[in-house]
């Protein structure tokens, strides 16, 4: 008979080591993928994951089940990842957003690529583009929310995202051409 999520939460709130291990086993793989998306090096991703889970266990007494446990954990992981990347961020408006939008043509299908390939593409983006692409395209934040979170202007967020999208599309085109040639 498996342990329910409520029992795991209760155990973690009581400081039970077995419950903490169960929680880690249940969410660590998913959260490690998040960490990898926001970082460029595996060691940094591991540090972020470790720091995140320590925060999770420290603060789980505050978890009030107003949202799902997975969502609450992901928020902490994303915030920890952002904090780890904050000193590496040099965010500034890159080019005119309208100009970038006009140059973008969405001709590639993301589903043609494996998750590892997509992850690799994201991690090769410039740090600013990488963070904003993750937040906008995958996490679903709005540009003004990103602007508030990172203390940047909304325009900077949009231009950084446009640049990230452009770079990814170029990468996907190159990869497709290589496949076709090969």
């Amino acid at each position, binding site marked *: 008979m498996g342990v329910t999520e409520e029992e795991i939460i209760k155990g973690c709130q009581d400081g039970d080591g077995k419950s*903490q291990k169960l929680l880690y086993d249940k969410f660590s793989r998913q959260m490690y993928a998040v960490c990898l998306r926001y970082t460029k090096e595996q060691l940094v991703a*591991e540090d972020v994951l*470790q720091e995140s889970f320590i925060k999770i266990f420290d603060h789980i007494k505050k978890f009030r089940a107003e949202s799902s446990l997975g969502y609450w954990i992901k928020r902490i992981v994303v915030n920890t990842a*952002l*904090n780890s990347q904050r000193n590496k961020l040099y965010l500034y408006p890159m080019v005119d957003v309208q100009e970038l939008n006009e140059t973008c043509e969405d001709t590639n299908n993301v589903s043609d690529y494996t998750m590892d390939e997509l992850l690799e593409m994201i991690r090769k983006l410039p740090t600013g583009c990488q963070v904003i692409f993750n937040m*906008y*395209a995958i996490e*679903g934040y709005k540009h003004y929310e990103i602007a*508030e979170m990172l203390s940047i202007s909304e325009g900077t967020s949009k231009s950084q995202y446009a640049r990230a999208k452009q770079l990814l599309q170029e990468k996907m085109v190159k990869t497709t051409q290589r496949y076709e040639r090969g």
Partner: protein
Amino acid sequence: MKEARDQFENQWQSAFAEAEVTSPGHLWSSIDATLAGQREAGYKKKILFFKWVAAASIFIAVTSGMLVWFGNINETEILAESSLRDVLSNEGVEGKNEVAPTAAGKLYPENKIASGTTIEKKDEKMVSTMGTDALIASVEEENVSDKEGRSFVGAANSHGSESSTGLSNESDVSKNTTRAIADNTTGSTNLKRIDDASYIVMLDDNSETGNEVADGALMVNDNGHGFVFILEKVDNMTFADGETGMAPWETDFLYLVPDLTAGTHKKAFEGFNLWAGLSIGSGSFNPGSDGNLDLGVSEDALNFSSGDGDRGVEAYFTDQSPIPSDIGSSFSAGLDFGTKVSAKVILSGGLHYMNLSSVSSSNLVVTDPTSNESLALFSQDISNPTIQNAVRSGDLIVNRTNVDFVNSFNYLTIPIKAGYVLVDKKLNLTLNSGISSNFLISNDIKSDDSTIGLFDESSSTDAYRPVYFNLLTSIELGYRFKEKYYFSLEPNYRRAINTITKDESTSSSKPTSIGVSVGIRYIF
């Protein structure tokens, strides 16, 4: 174009929706080790707390034991020594032969007893206590007898005739009132009870003559309080003024042993009626024992929700997790006064200044880009529309800088306590309990970073009640080091009855405090 963009993002979102990557196995070991370290630190804190509790318990137990032990001995010794010394050094107790030093070697070395008087120790077991034992032994050595050849138990007051010790006449006891003790068998009034004198009267042995007045001693201390040292139980006594019955102090002391079980023995220090003094104290201040002062804002302030619509600045400010304040310190000083309302009950009050302070932190700081002035935000500032609008419009920029700040309260305190006296000797032990009214003078919050100010200092003061009440309990250890002066050491515990925060405040706290105070009193 718009649809193409949405499709692009949806594809990426779907691709990573269920993404999982197995984390390295050593990661859990590191996390587990860190958590174990945190648990160990927690245990160490608990152990430290229990160590202090154990040390305090031992201290109180040892002190209480010493108070009881030395207090009892001291009182009996004081009474016996002072009375015997006084009577033997009295001019009326003049003799030719010096009494040899006693077994204690220090009690009566200079005293003299009339010579030629035969002293008979009536019953060995009856004179087994302290100085009296030595006295009688010494007197016996001197072979003291009165002129009529009757034997006496000690320095004696004889039947009506001239006393061998010269104490039978009132004139011998100048400025002291005398009260004759009658032998109820003979009706004579030749035995004297001396009131208000440092004096001793030893009743003579009438056993041979059939009189029922037994051997004994009326011992009187400096304050006129005395007891009868009964060598044989006296069934009845008739005083010259017609009063009959046992001497009232007889029930308090039998054979020089205080009758503690009856609980009616006289106190060593009478007249402890009204006192006033100064005291100063310090201790802990725990705002988190029931609720807490959630002043700071934690990094959870950065926790944004995702993908749930138009969550803007409002969400930014509502997703806060306040940081509870740490345990801080307390300090108090002021005037005390009190009075003894009965032998065992003391009422006391005072007027004190009290300072409570605790440390909290915040990592939410807003900066005015024009003036470059930075202001730390507290939990109550988060809902402030002025701040929200300023952040929304860009007039204030949010930063994440950890700032510690000290939250300090200044109170005027009026304690009222009732105390039950457990030990009332030269050393005292009293249990106190009461209530204090605490009037808020001011609340100050100061940042430890001089470059970061506070958004609205007045808002923090407004968050607290102008008055709150404490329940007080304490153990008072006292020492009367001079006739009129008294030193007190008082470990105490205070607990708020109501919250120090207003009902509408963002946090709620009923703080507790454990501390110790010392004071000095003048006894009127």
